[in-house]
């Protein structure tokens, strides 16, 4: 059979971002994949040289607009560990609330894009319609739809008064109702199943070996979630990772769907347990030493390596984002599937290219 090389991307309608894959095909079957990156590479880790460690929060938020709060949270957590800062209890819970709201937003966004990948446009529109409520929450509580920017070193910047918290909960009730409504379509619809069941299988062993993270890992049956470490206030909340079994696109889809509901439940619990008190502590001194800190992003484990030298600029900031870890598993999923399924499989890892390349 003749081998053909098909360039996939960088500008492709299914992806909001430029991702480029060189697909080597035999007939319609993918044989080999070579990713080409660099279309979104900015080099923002180097900005630590020109911005001081407080200003870097804004940069970290802009590693990725979809999970900005969680990036900032991870960064602040790292710096706090370096400087030995204990943040107030209220701040820990508020961080969880915003992070989980963000997770709902990100998962709904992904569910929509995933539906779009197999041409289910009305489902895409529906998911994004629901998501707008979360954007409203972000805007009302944080002041910006995409980057609520609430994390600072030593706590959080904004408080949530009881009225606001109540309003957030009522909004989330509405969201939950509508998300529950989607279940019938997302998990049981014939078309959706036809396009996702058994596609892009990643076995448990492969997932571990290739270093998959997040829903991609849990979809293959591994019960691992960084939230289990209990950073921020997760240790005091009831949380159990959602796992799938089959490791195919459907099972990853299911994991994310259930996580959306779980995130809403977590917000509810966190609001009910929200302790009174200050929301931040004063920060004195400069970070020194090295630290590795991790949080769970909607897409999986996010790792920051921070090295400070006692000055106001950091020596080195290294960001390992979940999609970066999920690319090798993706490369192992693609061979053997049909060209028409490529977008579905690629989206099933929830790629975030601006994260990957930074």
């Amino acid at each position, binding site marked *: 059979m003749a081998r053909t090389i098909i360039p996939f991307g960088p500008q492709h309608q299914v992806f909001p971002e430029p991702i480029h894959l060189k697909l080597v095909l035999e007939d319609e079957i993918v044989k080999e994949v*070579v990713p080409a*990156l*660099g279309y979104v*590479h900015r*080099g923002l*880790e*180097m900005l630590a*040289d020109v911005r001081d460690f407080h200003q870097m929060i804004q940069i970290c938020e802009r590693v990725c607009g979809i999970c900005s709060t969680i990036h900032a949270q991870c960064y602040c957590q790292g710096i706090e560990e370096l400087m030995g800062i204990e943040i107030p209890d209220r701040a820990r819970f508020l961080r969880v609330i915003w992070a989980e709201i963000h997770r709902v937003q990100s998962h709904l966004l992904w569910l929509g894009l995933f539906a779009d990948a197999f041409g289910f446009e009305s489902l895409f529109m529906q998911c994004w319609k629901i998501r707008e409520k979360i954007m409203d929450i972000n805007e009302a509580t944080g002041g910006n739809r995409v980057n609520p920017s609430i994390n600072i070193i030593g706590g959080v910047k904004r408080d949530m008064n009881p009225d606001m918290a109540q309003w957030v909960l009522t909004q989330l009730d509405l969201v939950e109702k509508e998300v529950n409504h989607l279940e019938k379509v997302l998990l049981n619809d014939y078309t959706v199943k036809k396009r996702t069941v058994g596609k892009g299988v990643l076995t448990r062993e492969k997932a*571990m*070996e*290739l*270093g998959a993270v997040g829903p991609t890992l849990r979809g293959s049956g591994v019960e*691992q979630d*960084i939230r*289990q*470490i209990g950073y921020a206030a997760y240790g005091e909340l009831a949380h159990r990772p959602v796992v799938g079994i089959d490791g195919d696109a459907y099972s990853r889809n299911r994991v994310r769907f259930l996580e959306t509901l779980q995130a809403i439940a977590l917000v509810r619990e966190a609001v009910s347990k929200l302790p009174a008190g200050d929301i931040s502590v004063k920060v004195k001194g400069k970070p020194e030493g*090295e*630290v*590795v800190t*991790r949080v769970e992003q909607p897409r999986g*484990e996010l*790792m920051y*390596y921070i*090295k400070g030298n006692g000055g106001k600029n950091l*020596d*080195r900031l*290294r960001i*390992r984002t979940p999609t*970066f*870890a999920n*690319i*090798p598993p993706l490369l192992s999923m693609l061979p053997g599937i049909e060209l028409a399924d490529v977008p579905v499989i690629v989206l099933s890892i929830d790629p975030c290219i601006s994260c990957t*390349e930074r």
Partner: protein
Amino acid sequence: MKEVISTTKGTVVSKTVDMKKDGYRFVTMSCVELDADTVDILYHFDRDLHLKHLRLTIQKKEAVPSVSLVYFAAFLVENEIQDQFGIRFDGLVLDYERTLYLEKEAPDAPYCRISVSRDVKSGED
């Protein structure tokens, strides 16, 4: 960072193999510039939410043995380090020849602030 094990160029691959045998997941590698000639390469591993690190201190001009044959997932980050620091990895399974992120017009080895590496980008000159 609590558990850091130092390695040398000769033992890094065998130590990584040990990690894999013990069931560790490869998280990533970080490269940190120490001074004009040396860099630290940190290998991060995770098992059941517990982190372990290997530290390898090398000269910038030296080539580092690649661990991408042990953990395939390492190929991306090794290519990234090649781009950003101009350090060479020997035996990469998929070598982008230092063009993973950067085009020729972009600065060479931008992460080396103290001295620019002598290693010329392949394809040039």
